[in-house]
């Protein structure tokens, strides 16, 4: 049996003096898992994803990512971890405006110090893969929401990370774009074995995952197979 890729133990998080947002959250994810996170609005899903993404830090508890304890990361070490280990897909796409699709996809590779001779063909290949061969030089504002999210997925894949974190990736999309994005995400997990953690409100999207985690008031209230019972927990 291989090592877990993500191991979270009893994590707490609160903002200021308000009620804690995360309480004693623990979760273990094995490589290649496809996990959906559900829960009411404000239950702490995004806060949890940010901690998983090394964008934010837990107040207490432990988080081991790919065998590395993230408790005392320097900012630069965290940046390297995000660059190599994690691919982010945000609800709001978060592409750089005024930059071509190609530039956006290349950015993680440029940050890693790769020369143009390496990042340019790779960025084209990734855009081909998400069906945007004709859009290399389009700016985000020239693309539909679904196309922008596909650019964002191509960008997330640029450094071949073992983990993809997607916080409501279809939240801003119509149902057609939404199912196209889900088809791509499914295939990443099925064909390339990328560990995928996806936050969603929609049961039919959660149903495509292999494991379901439900949050309520900052606690995990369900962790198991995707079932009707789990959804309504």
């Amino acid at each position, binding site marked *: 049996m291989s090592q877990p890729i993500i191991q979270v133990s009893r994590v707490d998080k609160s903002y200021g003096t308000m009620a804690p947002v995360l309480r004693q959250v623990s979760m273990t994810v094995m490589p290649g898992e496809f996990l959906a996170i559900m829960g009411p609005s404000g239950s702490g899903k995004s806060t949890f994803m940010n901690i998983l993404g090394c964008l*934010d830090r837990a107040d207490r508890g432990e988080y081991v990512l790919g065998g590395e304890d993230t408790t005392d990361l320097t*900012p630069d070490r965290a940046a*390297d971890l995000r660059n190599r280990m994690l691919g982010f897909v945000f609800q709001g796409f*978060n592409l750089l405006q*005024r930059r071509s699709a190609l530039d956006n996809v290349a950015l*993680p590779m440029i940050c890693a110090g790769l020369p143009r001779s390496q990042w340019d063909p790779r960025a084209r290949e990734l855009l081909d893969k998400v069906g945007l061969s004709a859009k290399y030089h389009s700016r985000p504002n020239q693309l539909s929401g679904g196309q922008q999210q596909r650019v964002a997925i191509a960008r997330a894949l640029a450094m071949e990370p073992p983990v993809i974190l997607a916080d409501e990736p279809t939240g801003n999309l119509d149902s057609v774009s939404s199912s196209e994005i889900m088809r791509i995400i499914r295939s990443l997990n099925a064909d390339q074995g990328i560990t995928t953690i996806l936050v969603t409100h929609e049961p039919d999207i959660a149903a495509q995952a292999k494991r379901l985690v439900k949050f309520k008031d900052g606690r995990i209230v369900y962790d198991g197979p995707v079932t009707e019972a789990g959804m309504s927990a």
Partner: protein
Amino acid sequence: MSMKNSAILGEALISMRSTGLRTFLTMLGIIIGVGSVVLMLAIGRGVEISVRDSIASQGANLFIILSGSTTASGIRTGSGGAATLTVGDAQELAGLPGVVAVSPNVAGISQIVNEGQNWSTQVRGATADFFIIRDWTVSAGALFDDGAERAAAPVAVIGATVAENLFLSDEDPVGRTIRIKNIPFQVVGVLEKKGQSVDGQDQDDTIVVPLTTAQRRLFGSPFPGAVRVIFVQAASEEAMKGLDEKIREVLRLRHRLGENQDDDFTVRDLTAIGQTIQESTQAIALLLGSIAAISLVVGGIGIMNIMLVSVTERTREIGVRKAIGARERDILLQFLIESVILSLGGGLIGLLLGGGLSMLIGSIFNLPTEVSLFSVTLSFVVAAGIGVFFGYYPARQAARLQPIEALRYQ
């Protein structure tokens, strides 16, 4: 594993492309500041060269003694107003230690005629030493010598401007006869061109005749041997020190001036005049320099301001960059490069502007202004320094943003 510097430079350039006018306005302070520095240095250098050259053209290590100075009531008659100096004074001054040449002069404006041509100019009666003191040679013909002086010969050496105005360009003035105050003089030589003096006068607009000839035939004399000016040349700059005091002692004694009587002559030191001119130029330069300094600081604050605005506007972009793995150094450098490009751009435009203006001023005021390698280097170093100094704080703000805060912005 870190971002390449060339890639950071590229990112910075792309970010700046979108803000044309704002970028230019931000540069304005630096443009004015660097422009003033360049202009100041160019003009300062031009004045220095021009003062040095024209002092040298008057004669090196020179004292000019002018006759007449003040009346008993303290009213100045103006230098050269009353003839109080004599050839005898000059001869005695020639004996002072450190003196290498002495030339007593008289001078007056006279009408000169050559056949149909008329010209009014200064006619100087001088001993032959005058040419040694002025380091002046002829471009045609010859200078007159002591023999002509002793014989009070009616010969004249004419300046280039006079030659141009009395003779056609294909005529040779040497050997021709001109009339000064209707008295015929033979032109024996044409002086080499000297250009303008410190006070902007055309030094070539002059005629020099032997002193004795001038005294007897042209200007007359209130008393025998009276002269208006005595030029005294010292052996060296070193030899000039204290010599003016000795000159005063000798002349006061010869003129029998009592203890409570003022000098009836004035001793002028051209080097001192040159220094005064340079000092006032330096004062102007200092003023320009402080304008430049203020401008540069204001420009720097402008850059800092615009960079802070830019950091705020691009908070989300910074968040995205951090999320996908940009390090603090990458973000810091990107913003720092932007501010340095801003200030260097301003520096370059300022340099061109200052250089252009100094050329314009140089041609208007006939100054040999020059933009030296030093001022080019200085502009770039100062501009880059301002970019780094005033850009550092905003860049650090950007670099230190928490990725999650930056992503959540707006």
